[in-house]
Structures are given as structure tokens and as C-alpha cells.
């Protein structure tokens, strides 16, 4: 990928991130932080690629660790966010 294209992607993504969060009520800050924490779990994809093309044993070991950690990020992030949001939706129903 050309460097300039990457720079445009970074710039647009940064604005998107700020824009998406800027009007969030503070009651949702914790689930949101946890949710964004889950989303950077996309690092799992990179970790899988790294392990998939690892040749030497050092690369395999570090790649293996990367996949374990990233999978923890994904699954842990998802489960705790889901658990928190579940409570918010039940509160919402009670109010209606």
C-alpha cells in the first residue's frame, strides 16, 4: 500500500473515532471503553498472519504468544461488554 493512501486512511479513521465518541453520554463510558477494547482485538487477525508465516522456532513461539494474547483480548472484551450492555437494556425495559 502506498504511504499516502495509508496516511489518508489513518486520518479518516481518527476523525471517525473522535466523531463516533464525542456525543456519548457518560453513563455509557465504561461499556464503550470495553467495546472499543474489544474492537482493537482485530489484532488477532494480524497475530494469525504472523503465526501463519512464521518459519523459525523463535518466530513461531512469539507468533503463538501473539495469537493467545489477541484471542484473550477478543473473547474477554466481547464477553464483559456484552454482560454490561445486557444490564443496560434490562434497565431500559423496566423504564418503559
Amino acid at each position, binding site marked *: 500500500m502506498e504511504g499516502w493512501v495509508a496516511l489518508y486512511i489513518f486520518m479518516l479513521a481518527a476523525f471517525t473515532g473522535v466523531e463516533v465518541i464525542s456525543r456519548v*453520554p457518560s453513563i455509557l*463510558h*465504561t461499556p464503550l471503553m470495553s467495546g472499543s*477494547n474489544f474492537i482493537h482485538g482485530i*489484532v488477532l487477525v494480524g497475530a494469525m498472519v*504472523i503465526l501463519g508465516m512464521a518459519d523459525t522456532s523463535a518466530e513461531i513461539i512469539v507468533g503463538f504468544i501473539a495469537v493467545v494474547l489477541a*484471542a*484473550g*483480548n477478543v473473547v474477554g472484551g466481547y464477553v464483559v461488554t456484552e454482560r454490561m450492555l445486557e444490564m443496560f437494556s434490562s434497565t431500559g425495559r*423496566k423504564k418503559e
Partner: protein
Amino acid sequence: MTSALDFIIPAAYFIAAVMFIYGLKAMSSPVTARRGILWSGAAMLVAVLVTFVHPEVKGNYALMIVAIAIGSVAAWWTAKRVAMTDMPQMIALYNGMGGGAAAAIAGVELLKASSGAVTMDLATIILAVLGGIIGSIAFTGSLIAFAKLQGWMRKTWRFSGQQILNLLVFVTTVVLGAVLVVQGASTGVLIAFFAFALLAGLLITVPIGGADMPVVISLYNALTGLAVGFEGYVLQNPAMMIAGIVVGAAGSLLTQLMAKAMNRPLSNVLFAGFGKADEDAAGAAASGEMKSIDATDAAIQMAYAEKVIIIPGYGMAVAQAQHKIWELTELLTARGVKVSFAIHPVAGRMPGHMNVLLAEAGVPYDVIHDLEDINAQFPTTDVALVIGANDVVNPAARKDPSSPIHGMPILDADRAKNCIVIKRGQGTGFSGIENLLFFEENTRMLYGDAQKVAQALISGVKSLG
């Protein structure tokens, strides 16, 4: 076949990126939040599945599946069991794992470059190194944050010259990174680089006090996002770039909002800390004595009040008293008392943490108010009931210019006609700062575990018939 994959793989990553942004957007409103995480979850599933057929993935499939299974099962098992009060440290832990994974990716790529297996252009190697530094700091920093909030690490080590040591370690990390960029990676430098980067994360986080942890966790969340975005460039994976940078930017904004809520610049959180200042500032301004009250009298006072504001803090959360407090609220409301909840932006161990805990107890949103909404109401309030909150109601923030928290916006509980503080003992709170509120003329202390006290208050109100 290959040509089909050439289209399917980028298309799947693209769809995943769209769904991540949509999901994050949906998570920013309570009505659609649940849908948001489901969308993001589906996006993740698509991205992970398609990676199995990624052209660069040539082997190690069995190892991959084993590694995913280990990470997933361990995280699933812990995440299902953790209590809502302990949520912040688990979020820190999972975040740290993501940072560690990003750093490990940088490690393998630089290792490949050092053996000549891949060649990197300048931009790639710079971003690989940057992602390596940031990811490593987020990794060890988050682990320390976890250990502190979990109570495994109570001390905040401070010694003279600490900041100089931290600076030295950080500068050494950057210099080693620069060597990697200029000279190309060599295994020895690579190992030293990561050792120093990991050490920097430890050293930066160790002196930070518990009261500042919300900001720190949010900061490391943003850093992990950045690291993931940078490693996405290294691997030429736009989904990682987009998702990582979106989280990095969103997290930076959240961190800023929180630092603002505490009226402390971020540099202050990272490099100063409450603990140091309180030795000379705290206690000096506190005069008078704390006057205690028993639960029955407190119950009577509230039952015959017109307006009560409840200010929950972490002390309520650890005692798991939120359900009892809601029961008490319902009893009071039935008697015609107007009860509201006032929540400080940094109450709990994470921003919005208290809202999660109240949601768990079934408290509806419409009785919960933010600081800006409710502060004007305190002068007309009969009883402000403070439950295990400390710094967020400390009038020293307004009155005492020498206090380390001076200038921080607080809930004006001291302006209510009466203030009842539920607290376990006379000690200072998490930040170690003496609370002037406890010595005010109209404040009464109600000592005890928040759950037991709440039960006593419930019985007290019930006995009035």
C-alpha cells in the same frame, strides 16, 4: 481460485471495518448499544474466519487453532465469572493482552527483517518500531493497572530520582528504536529494545495511584488501538489500520474527557500523582471533629425529608450494596420523598462504572443525574446521602487552594441542608486526601459496611410504618 480469494479476502476485511464502525456508533446510545456489540462481534468473526484462507498464511494451522482455543477459553472463563465491581481491572487485563499481541507482531516482523526474510521500507520499519514501543508499554502498563485494582499491589513506589530513571529508560527505548530504524534490525538490539519498552510500561505505571487508574486504563486502551493500527500498516491490513486508529482516536478523546472531569492535565496524572502531594497538603486544613449518627436516626431523617440525593461511590460497590440502596430508594419514594442519584464522572474505578453498577441493581436512568444537572439542587436538598464516595464530594476542591484536588469539579454535598456519610472507618479514601466534608457542621458519619448500613436504614424506614 486464487483470483476469487483475491477479491473475497479484502472484501471481507472491508465489510468487517464498516461493521466495526457501525457497531461502535451503535454502542454510543443506550437504546442501540446491545445491537452494536453484536455487529462488532459478527465483524470479528468474519475477519478471523477469512484470515484462515489468507494467502500469506502458509502453515501452522494446528498451532493457530490451539492458540486461539487457549486464549479464548481462558478469557471466556474469567470474563463470565468476574463481578461487576471488578470489571475495570478485567478490561485493563484484556486490553493489555491486545497491546502485547501488537508488540509481538512487531517483534516477529522485525525478526524477519533482521534475518533478511523480508525487506521493509523506511515507513514500514518506523511504524513497526512505534507500534512495538506503544504496544509494549500498553501491555506491561495494563498488567500493573490490573494488579493494582485487583489489590495485588497496594503500594505506590516512589523514590527520589524516579522520574529521571523513567525518563532514562524511555529515552533508551526510543534510541534503541531509532537504531533499529537506521541500521536495520539485529537480534541483539531487538531484544534490548523490547526489554526496555516493557520495562518503561512497568516503571511509568507503578507510581500512579489508584484514584488515577480510570484515566490510565483509558489511556492504555487508546495506546493499544494505535499500536494495532500501526502494525496493520506493517502487515498491509486495512481492517487492522482502521479499527486500530478508530479505537486509538476514540480512546484518546475519552481519556481527555476523564482527565478534564478530574481537572488534572494528563501529564499530571502520569508524572505527579496524588500520593506525593498529600503528605504536605492533606490534614493541615481539616479542623473540627467528625460527628456520628446511628442508622435509626438517619432513617428517620430521610423518611421525613422532602428531597434526598444519593451519592454512590466505590465503597457502595465493594460492599455490593447497590441492590439494598435501590430497595431503600423505593421505600422512600413510596413515602413521597423525592430521591435522585448523583454520579460524578469519575466515581468508581472507571468512568461510568457507577452507572453500570446501578444498572445492575435495576435503577432506572431517569433518577440518575450527572454532576452538571444536579449540583444546583443541593441547597434545596434535605439530605445528601454519601455512600463510600470520597474525593468526588470533597469541598477542599473548592475551598483549599493547597489541596492536590483543588479545582476538580465535585458534587456539592456540603451545600445540602444535611449530609450523611456512610463509611467504614475514619481513614482517608483511595487517594489518601483528608475530606473536609466529614468535618462540616451539618455532616453526620454513619460508620459501617455499606450493605449492613443500608439494611439497617431499610429496617429503620419500615419501622416507621
